[in-house]
């Protein structure tokens, strides 16, 4: 698998990461190198093999949907970079 600088820019956009020109160069080479190593998996015959997402068998967990009063929202809001009247503040989204 060959990785181009354009691939890196495309993926960085998907991941919402601003990369410097130097980072783009570095990651192009490193990702190519790492993905080449991953290609070893293509040698494994996985026809008919089911995927594993979690190794320990888990069943769906059910519980009652009960409302619980939370009195400490200030502790959460105080972590916000910007807030106003108990709401998270962001840049204008709709023009």
């Amino acid at each position, binding site marked *: 698998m060959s990785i181009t600088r354009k691939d890196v820019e495309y993926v960085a956009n998907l991941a919402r990461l601003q990369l410097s020109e130097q980072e783009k160069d570095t990651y192009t080479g490193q990702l190519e190198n790492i993905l080449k*190593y991953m290609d*070893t998996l293509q040698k494994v015959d996985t026809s008919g*093999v089911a995927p594993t997402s979690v*190794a320990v068998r888990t069943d769906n967990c059910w519980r009652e949907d009960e409302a619980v009063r939370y009195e400490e929202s200030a*502790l959460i809001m105080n*972590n916000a*970079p910007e807030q106003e009247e108990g709401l998270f503040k962001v840049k*204008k989204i709709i023009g």
Partner: protein
Amino acid sequence: MEIFKTTASNLAKQIKNKEITSLEVVSSFINRIKTKNEKLSVFLNVFESEALDAAKEIDKKISSGQPVGPLAGIPVAIKDNICIKNKPATCGSKILQNYSSPYDAAVIDKLKESGAVIIGKTNMDEFAMGSSTENSAFMKTKNPWNPDYVPGGSSGGSAAAVGSAMVPLAIGSDTGGSIRQPASCCSVVGMKPTYGTVSRYGLVAFASSLDQIGPFAKTVEDAALLLTALSGYDKKDSTSVNCPKQDFLSLIQNGDIKGLKIGLPKEYFIPGIDAEVDKVVKEAIKKLESLGAEIIDVSLPHTEYAVAVYYIIAPSEASANLARYDGIRYGYRSNDAIDLMEMYKKTRGAGFGPEVKRRIMLGTYALSSGYYDAYYAKAQKVRTLIKKDFDDVYKKVDVIVTPTTATPPFKFGEKTDDPLQMYLSDIFTISCNLAGLPGISIPCGFTKNNLPIGFQILGKQFDELTVLKAGYEYQKITDWHLKYPEG
């Protein structure tokens, strides 16, 4: 015996029997932190006055005859990706530098119920991504046995805290070896329990199908004591498994390991491993054999694919989990953006360090349209085969023994320029997470340059007891765990 050389289980007994106060114990460890932390860069935060207050509170309860928990008065250090209410949880990242947790993790609740004294938070690779703790945005933790060497990672701070006896107990998290590998590097015991044994509620997520919290201690007994306190069902973690609670510390003292079947997988004893590691681990196996265990050669044929599988699955899960750092609800925000999209990108570009960005890129790529089947879906299928290897072998043996790492601890900077080489340092610890098994690293010797070596015992899912039992019996006839670094 000096306080810092006394096991946590013995200190707990002495505190309960009023032979010593918790205040004396906690003060003595705080003094060790004061003399050692500057040189070793282990703690990001020490909660001195709160710890001393908590110790006094325990002493008061004991002197007035009130019941106290099994860890009453014992100081414990916490990896900085585990939330403690109103305390920082930086995860070793600039993006969370000013974050303050609004709640306690489930394990913190459990530690407090057990009477443990939370003494501070330890350094780690950023978001637990790394094998040397060099990826912390704040400082480089030194190996207590030789400050030119890394302590391993990502829980390098917790491992070095116990290794230098700044605390008797610590907790870490293990996604691909992040407890066992630093335990091996620092000559301490470190255990990753079966996935689902310890609640992940309040553990900052890295790779949710692999992450698990576990104990660090000098002895297997102490690890058993701490694991007993940490484990148990938690309705707030939907992957937490409802198993009967076991008192590991008392259970490991029953019986012996005569007839225990130990599998040695040939894929873990390969020409590539360091000769001193190979020799020392084989000596440990001889010791287990001398206790009556039966050694059986086995094969885990898909071992060679574990690193590739892990470094697709873990970064994929991480790329999704770390999407939450968007500069809106908490953490760092870049202020020189013209619109929301640019704010996201600049915030994340500046807030994350190089390894975290590399893994987000890798995971995003593996999940992206057109590559999902070739990477992520393929890795999940090979994960099934890796797990099946273990299922097959566990029909013949009770536990599996391997080296924890293929080499002794390495020097600072040795692997930082080549991410793939760093990833390969997890080669012996990763499969355990992929298969959801319990695994422990136990000190078993030193190189001729006095660098620690550990061996790993892997068990069947939810059979922590047999793993701990084997380690406990090993430590009864060896003294590696009684050695302390100089200075």
